[in-house]
């Protein structure tokens, strides 16, 4: 006998609204039906109603966690449409902004993952150390989450010399504790029991379903926009692309934690290599008719903005492809065949960002079920 377990739209394991209909046989999952779309905001349309300068702020607010990368991708597309280059110092400031964001996003994710497997202590400690990176964003850019280091044609604020020693001290502290966490996650037996061999995404599936970011890299796909399509100052900073082979949740944990170490290295190099000089160039009022693509490596993976201009100060069309959206198809092969206990950690393992792309439905092809939720059902579920 199979029965359907509803998870969400409100559920303790999901911080954001999603509705899963998991078909289970005992504890085993035999079918998955994801219903998303409780958060559709119509931002693509709203961006084409705003001028570029105002659109920058809206693009940053597509997603709270990866706001710097969103505005960076938007800026990158708009700058290449307008044909302007940003000053060297600003490129390094953008790198520092984006990497601080990657650190805090990955630590946030690691904390959520620890919570999903019931390891509350690790969850609290991850988030305690995430505060360090948030403090640094606050120190350098003025706010913990919405740092907004990027500006059309440059950077919004300059990094002051006197803040750099504190930044380096904090990064050293962070590096030490992240190294300790990698050690713990790869050797604690309860963590290994819950994460190893769970939610495996094979390399073939990852490539075919176009998975991006740490999800793909944990499955052995060597793919990182920072290296393949360098932006800001990434072309001048050497770093490693972290790739793991196994594709399970443990590999995703290790990939993310090792990426934090890599990010800390990148920030150190950026501080050393940062030239002096102006941080902004003038951005023109009107932008010539043209089209361009801006891609960045968000903490969750490849983020793409397509901008088409029409000669005015407003874009004609902006297309956003967020990393979580690209990763949703990979959830199904990861879930089917597992147990209920694995749902939260497997879903969390792609680091889904609902505010980015909460708008997908997947139907299990094996059972051929194509359920759509009716209003009645929704009303019943909400009661």
């Amino acid at each position, binding site marked *: 006998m199979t029965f359907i377990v509803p998870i969400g739209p409100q559920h303790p394991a999901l911080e954001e609204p999603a509705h899963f209909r998991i078909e289970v046989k005992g504890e085993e999952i035999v079918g998955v039906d994801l219903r998303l779309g409780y958060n559709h905001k119509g931002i693509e*349309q709203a961006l084409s109603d705003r001028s570029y300068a105002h659109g920058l702020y809206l693009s940053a607010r597509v997603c709270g966690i990866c706001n710097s990368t969103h505005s960076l991708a938007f800026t990158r597309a708009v700058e290449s449409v307008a044909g302007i280059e940003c000053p060297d110092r600003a490129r390094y400031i953008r790198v520092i902004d984006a990497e601080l964001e990657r650190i805090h996003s990955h630590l946030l994710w690691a904390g959520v993952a620890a919570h999903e497997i019931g390891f509350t202590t690790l969850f609290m400690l991850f988030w305690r150390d995430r505060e360090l990176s948030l403090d640094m964003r606050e120190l350098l850019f003025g706010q913990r989450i919405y740092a907004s280091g990027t500006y059309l044609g440059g950077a919004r604020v300059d990094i002051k010399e006197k803040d750099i020693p504190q930044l380096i001290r904090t990064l050293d502290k962070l590096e030490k504790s992240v190294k300790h966490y990698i050690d713990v996650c790869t050797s604690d037996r309860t963590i290994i029991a819950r994460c190893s061999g769970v939610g495996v995404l094979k390399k073939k599936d990852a490539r075919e379903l176009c998975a991006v970011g740490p999800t793909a890299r944990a499955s052995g796909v060597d793919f990182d926009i920072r290296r393949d399509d360098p932006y800001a100052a990434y072309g001048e900073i050497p770093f490693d692309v972290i790739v793991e082979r196994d594709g399970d949740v443990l590999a995703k944990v290790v990939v993310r934690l090792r990426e934090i170490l890599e990010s800390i290295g990148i920030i150190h190099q950026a501080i050393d290599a940062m030239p002096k000089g102006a941080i902004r160039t003038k951005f023109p009022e009107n932008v010539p008719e043209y089209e361009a693509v801006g891609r960045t490596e968000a903490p969750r993976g490849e983020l793409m903005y397509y901008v088409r201009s029409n000669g005015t100060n407003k874009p004609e069309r902006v297309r956003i492809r967020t990393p979580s959206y690209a990763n949703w198809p990979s959830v199904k092969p990861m879930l089917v065949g597992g147990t209920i206990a694995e749902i939260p950690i497997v879903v969390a393992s792609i680091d889904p960002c609902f505010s980015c792309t909460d708008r*997908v439905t997947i139907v299990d092809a094996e059972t051929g079920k*194509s359920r759509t939720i009716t209003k009645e059902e929704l009303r019943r579920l909400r009661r």
Partner: protein
Amino acid sequence: MNANEVAQLIKRYADDVKIVGARHVFAVTDKERYIEALTALGDNDLKHLTTITGVDRGENIDVIYHIHCGESLLNLKLSIPKTALEIETVTDIFPGAILYERELMEMLGVQVKGHPDPRRLFLSDDWPAGKFPLRKEAKK
């Protein structure tokens, strides 16, 4: 594959090939050749479809396939008239295209033939049929 190699590869199937900023290739193809072009890319082990963008250009709708080619990005544009809004599915070449094609169907009303799961993706179930939010006429 770098931008020049991609440009060489795509030249047979597309016109107006230009390389922008060393790594982005823009090309325009047509209804007869785009499936061949995408198949050729798939055969060259370029399996990562970044996304499919639809742009309403008034008379036509531009469908742009963004394909990640290792070191470069190919933007293959296909222009189809609003009177015959129909394209073939590419899910057999790029299985990851499944969601992007569904979005294209509901947001711009482009019919994708042979799509395995042609249901709504973002819009709610009570959204009126035949109304497409990203079309220009929907703005008013």
